[in-house]
């Protein structure tokens, strides 16, 4: 009886987590995906300070947006309706030894300003996993700035559960601090990040600045 109850509770929790994750993704107007990969062989001459080189591939996609009353009014006056944007390569960011060293941009960020979304980070299972986590952290910080300047609020960052702690450490290295917000507590912050794990179970709020 106890075992059956525990099993039912486990299934309910899993379903809830899954639905929550799906619900969160479904309500995100756009999704930015960051995939990291070691570029091999590359610049592996003797005493090279640019090896290993990690490439973070950054894609964006926009879902079909719900049309608000204001949008309908604008469309009546000739504005074009919002359309879905399939997954599009935005840029490559190159990192080596804890530092972003280069960028190759292919497209401008054509996501509608004012819409909210999430960043999903996917780190490969290579022998340079720590370097990839470092690269992903650097990429997230740069993308976050791009989003802020383009008036696109970031809802959360989703990271693999087994890379969660290392990813948090990497963001700390970039000047973000973990925060435990108490009810009613005011936190002065230049920028806030909400980081969630996938599968669900870990969550962390971080602030940049004081």
């Amino acid at each position, binding site marked *: 009886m106890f075992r059956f109850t525990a099993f039912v509770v486990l299934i309910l929790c899993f379903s809830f987590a899954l639905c929550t994750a799906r619900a969160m993704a479904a309500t995100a107007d756009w999704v930015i995906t960051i995939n990291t990969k070691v570029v091999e062989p590359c*610049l592996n001459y003797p005493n090279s300070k*640019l090896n290993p080189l990690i490439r973070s591939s950054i894609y964006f996609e926009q879902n079909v947006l719900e049309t608000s009353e204001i949008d309908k009014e604008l469309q009546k006056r000739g504005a074009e309706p919002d359309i879905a944007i399939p997954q599009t390569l935005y840029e490559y960011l190159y990192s080596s030894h804890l530092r*972003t060293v280069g960028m*190759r941009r292919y497209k401008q960020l054509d996501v509608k300003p004012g819409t909210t979304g999430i960043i999903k980070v996917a780190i490969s299972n290579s022998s340079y996993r720590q370097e990839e986590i470092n690269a992903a952290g650097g990429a997230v910080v740069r993308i976050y700035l791009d989003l*802020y*300047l383009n008036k696109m609020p970031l809802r959360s960052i989703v990271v693999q559960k087994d890379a969660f702690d290392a990813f948090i450490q990497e963001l700390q290295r970039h000047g973000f601090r973990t925060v435990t917000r108490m009810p009613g507590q005011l936190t002065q912050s230049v920028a806030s990040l909400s980081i969630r794990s996938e599968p669900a179970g870990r969550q962390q709020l971080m602030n940049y*600045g004081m």
Partner: protein
Amino acid sequence: MLAVVVLVAIIIVAVLGIGIVVSMMMMSQKRTQSDIETLSLQMATGINKDDWVGQMNSMTEYSRELVFSSRSALNEAIAHHQRMRPLALQLMDEARQSAELIESERRELTVLIMKDLQKQSNDVADAASSKPGMRLPGVSADATQLKNVDAGYIDGVLTNLTSAEGLPDLREYDQQEKYITQKSFVYLPNINAKLPAPDDDLNFSFCSLPAAAKNTVAPARLTSNSVFKKLMTAGPEAGNDFTKCKFLPSAVQIVSSTKVSSGNQLSAPMSVSITAASPGATTRLP
């Protein structure tokens, strides 16, 4: 009558002898040329070993894009989003430091390539000094001496880089500064593509290197001496400061000399000059 026949026979033998000597000398030069061509191709292939020159060219351009993009973000933050200024400034500093690192590594790679060419030159020179040369009936040739091994590039060959589609402001700036071709937006070779102030203190040196065309990488090949442009002498003499070589090389020119003698009467140095271009950049971006 007999005297005439003998005289004619002597003349015929003399002409045949001169012909044999001349053909031996030409054979000797051909052999020397073949050896130098093989050496040139070998050295040229070593210049862009594992596409390090292509990759470094690309990383220099990526570093430039990062600096430009970070500066644009910082300017935007200062103008409209003061609260993000500290973060934007931090990322700007990182981009600038990375640009200095890339430039430093580019210089290191240049020195590495030049030293490798110098070593190969010295090895050939040492091997030649221990060779006895060639001795044939009527003609002899000393062992081939390397006079000069120069590193450089091929005139008219552009870079393997194109300006970024995703940064129209940078492309416009590059067009104004004439860093790129008008139609295909390919960066011009052997330039220091400086960015606008305040980042004009950083160096972004692009070298000449043919890009891959339709998945085909340009192989190492012999080419005309007239299109070779020298950057710096690599060998066989020592003493050159390779850190002063301004750009990564992508071609090599070898000048060799062989003293050919016919008995004790005829003797002349025969000089051979061969130019070879390195393999081009691969299709795969870093």
